[in-house]
């Protein structure tokens, strides 16, 4: 498992902020090594966000490429009006939102695939927490996972993004508002709706 080093955590340390500003300026002046360092500082967080939102390694790969290419092309226009993390995550969430909206229209990419061994959920290949040999717990855990995924799939793309950024990426609602170009209050309402839907759908499981 990769070590957790979210951009939010990085950006919260003043000395790293200074280093980051120097890196950004060097990258703006065409220093490739500085740009690569910036990518390395944030790319695990970017990939995790894209992977969890899109639930497809290929789509997450595409979003990763497009996001950092956009950063590369437009870094000269970055004026430190917001943090680099906010700017980068705005690009990533916009790309993911576009992708999710396209899926909603096309109703494509079922997570369940037909395989030689029968139907298989692509995301079941992801290792889950051990339930220590208790078959009933194991079965329940599997059902719960499937149900959570189903409910997440029913959220609107914006609710999904807000829930992801708050629950899994640990961003505060104020920051989520900045990333999505909206107010903290709007982000709070979105999270509120998302958790209400989740509670209504999963109440029987808990």
């Amino acid at each position, binding site marked *: 498992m990769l070590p957790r080093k979210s951009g939010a955590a990085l950006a919260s340390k003043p000395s790293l902020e200074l280093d980051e500003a120097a890196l950004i300026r060097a990258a703006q002046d065409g220093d490739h090594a500085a740009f690569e360092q910036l990518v390395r500082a944030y790319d695990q967080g970017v990939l995790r966000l894209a992977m969890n939102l899109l639930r497809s390694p290929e789509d997450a790969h595409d979003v990763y490429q497009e996001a950092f290419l956009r950063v590369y092309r437009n870094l000269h226009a970055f004026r430190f009006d917001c943090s680099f993390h906010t700017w980068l995550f705005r690009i990533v969430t916009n790309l993911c939102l576009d992708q999710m909206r396209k899926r909603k229209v096309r109703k494509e990419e079922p997570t369940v695939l037909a395989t030689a061994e029968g139907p298989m959920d692509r995301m079941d290949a992801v290792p889950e927490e051990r339930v220590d040999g208790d078959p009933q717990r194991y079965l329940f855990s599997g059902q719960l*996972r499937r149900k959570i995924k189903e409910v997440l799939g029913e959220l609107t793309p914006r609710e999904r993004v807000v829930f992801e950024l708050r629950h899994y990426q640990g961003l505060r609602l104020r920051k989520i508002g900045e990333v999505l170009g909206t107010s903290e209050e709007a982000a709070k309402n979105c999270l509120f709706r998302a958790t209400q839907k989740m509670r209504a759908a999963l109440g029987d499981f808990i």
Partner: protein
Amino acid sequence: MTECNWSREQFALLLYGELSFDHEEKVEAHLDRCAECRAALEREKALHAAFGAIEIEPSPSLLRRCRDDLRMRLMEAAPPRAPWWERLLPQSGFLRPVGALTLVAMGFFAARILPYANLNGNFNAASAAGDERVRYVEPAGAGRVQIVVDVTRQRVISGKLDEAPIRGLLLAAAKDPSDPGLRAETLGILNAQAASADVRGALIYALEHDGNAGVREKAMSGLAPYAADPEVRNALTVVLLGDSNPGLRTKAIDLLTHGDVDREVVGTLQELMVRGEQLGYVRERCLRVLRAVNASAETY
């Protein structure tokens, strides 16, 4: 809305630490006197914890693939450049309006002066040939047009390979994303200097990352005499495990298995066997080397 309903609606935000101080106080006060809501909060906590069960951590191999592909795409991408007026403007915030005014003034005076200068005369079409590129055009009134032309001047520089300016230009050309032919030719010349660390670094970089197989082959031939060097061995291992070109993989296994075979190479060969290596020569060579060192072809 009853106090119980209102409190329960706040539970999610309470658990995320996003309630205002006043609302949090109100919920806490209600929980102190309502056992049912305390039980409901416990259920909410269980739900909260259950969401963690579906979080996905991207695999290290996906991250590596993303990084490698990005590196290649950046090599192919043109270097980003701010528009020329942005480059002329000062970086400091309060000086930018002054810079912008200066640019406007320059434009005004240039417009007054230029019609009587070069662009007013007959343009010699012959001079546009060669290394000139029209940057933009705009109507200049009275049926005339104003054209801004970028002129690239060529210079011939000659010198020895170990001279710093020559070496610097060659190392830059070895990474020029626009022309694989130039990169291959440059590496062919640099191969003679592979004993020095900076050249060897450039060859290793090209071997691992260049998108053109011909360029990678040039790099490999320059590195062949240094196949015992640990960094070169790492690069050869990368090629053996993942290069798309069978010829390069064949050469890589020859170089890696020439002479004494170390434990890392044995591990690499076993990994290839476990993966079900498709290339006949590589598979045969793996088996022969593994047998020679009494290593299993199935486990590693």
